[in-house]
């Protein structure tokens, strides 16, 4: 059992070249996908638990479910686009290859998150307890976790880049596909993260799995109407 878990993690960590070769040669794709999905869920679930723990253990349990859900749903929503854009750019890949590759990137990101979990837990346990006076703490934790997750996500895409470089006819072709994939992943991930909120847990609202108003407006509407437009108005008046 333990060695099976180590093997799964080793596939992402130590044998990434073998994995990318298998994907390129379309070997054991379904098996790899299942392994990588398992690593992704395990890694992001532990980090999610730490992420929500500051607000309450219940929030930690919710975030342990929602973070893997966020990664999986973002990859699911973007997969078709990723495949089509790669093929349109002249890269010969199958849908299954793209799906395994996307999961590999997320598994890498989740492993980095898992390795940072002890550090995140230390800072969470040392943070002032959640109360109406702890707004600054909430904001610091929110920004730090968001930045960490985004950075780990980018680190994970290293696998995508290496694969694209190996199968694309030119570096330019690989770069265009890579940028398109990352941009779409960030765009969709931002909205799904907004929809699945809260993760850290606001000090002004009760702990819930999902907010009641989750589907009322999207994150980009919120950024425009609540942040950018008032800012622009303030600048010009």
């Amino acid at each position, binding site marked *: 059992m333990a060695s099976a878990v180590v093997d799964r993690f080793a596939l992402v960590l*130590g044998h990434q070249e073998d994995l990318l070769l298998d994907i390129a040669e379309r070997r054991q794709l379904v098996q790899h996908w299942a392994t990588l999905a398992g690593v992704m869920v395990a890694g992001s679930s532990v980090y999610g638990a730490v992420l929500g723990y500051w607000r309450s253990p219940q929030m930690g349990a919710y975030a342990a479910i929602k973070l893997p859900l966020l990664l999986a749903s973002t990859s699911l929503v973007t997969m078709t686009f990723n495949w089509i854009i790669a093929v349109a750019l002249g890269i010969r890949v199958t849908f299954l290859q793209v799906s395994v590759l996307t999961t590999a990137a997320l598994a890498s990101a989740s492993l*980095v998150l*898992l*390795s*940072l979990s*002890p550090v995140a837990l*230390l800072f969470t346990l040392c943070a002032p*307890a959640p109360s109406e006076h702890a707004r600054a703490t909430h904001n610091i934790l929110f920004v730090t976790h968001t930045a960490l997750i985004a950075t780990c996500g980018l680190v994970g895409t290293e696998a995508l880049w290496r694969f694209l470089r190996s199968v694309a006819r030119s570096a330019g072709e690989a770069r265009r596909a890579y940028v398109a994939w990352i941009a779409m992943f960030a765009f969709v991930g931002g909205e799904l993260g907004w929809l699945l909120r809260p993760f850290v847990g606001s000090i002004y609202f009760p702990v819930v799995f999902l907010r009641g108003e989750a589907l009322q407006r999207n994150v980009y509407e919120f950024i425009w109407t609540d942040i950018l437009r008032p800012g622009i108005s303030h600048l010009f008046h």
Partner: protein
Amino acid sequence: MSNESQIMPPPSPVPGSAPTGFVAPLVELLQHPDRLMARSRDTDELRTALTLFIGSLVCAAAYGAASGCFQGGWQVLASTIKAPLILYGSVALCAPSLFVFSSLAGAKLTWRRFFIILAGFSGLLGLLLVGFMPISWLFSVSSNSISFVVWLHIAAWCTALFFAGRFVSQSLSDAAGKATIALWLVLFLAVSFQVATVVRPVLWRAPGAPFIESGKKFFTEQLGSAMDPAEPNECSPRQ
């Protein structure tokens, strides 16, 4: 021939054989850090690694004792216990991220080799701290300003971390990339500051204060209160 043998220094240990005893592995780590890693490819260096871990514990405790002289009395003992706690707490918390960062960056690590790298890292940190120990002791017994000694310890810690980080970088044979190690070192520095905040007070304890202060605090706040000129900065050590 007999004259020559009197002039020539004793032959250096063969790189293939592990140094024995308690001090020799530490000296080798300081003088030839590459030898440990070179040997670890072929032989089991767990015994040397354990010696390095114990050595770093002793070194950190000695440095802690010197730092505790700022207040003197029981604080010498308290700092002797807390300094290794800070070192090992930080190493334990940051070890998983070093393994994952370097593996993802391309380093081929086995658990055994990783353990030896961690031992070398801890050992060098301890040795460098011992190098700073007399200086730390001198300023601890001759200064009343806590902000000054805090800066001194931060400078010593950062310098020790620089050399220990260089060992990690060289041990990973550049496969992991210098940027990856630099990033990890920044993480390690922040974590060590936070661990020091958790086990506070390390340098100066108010009369009747507990061995470890309760209450949650970020290290930035703790450092801020030690540096803030608005707060009482002059302690009354050695009373």
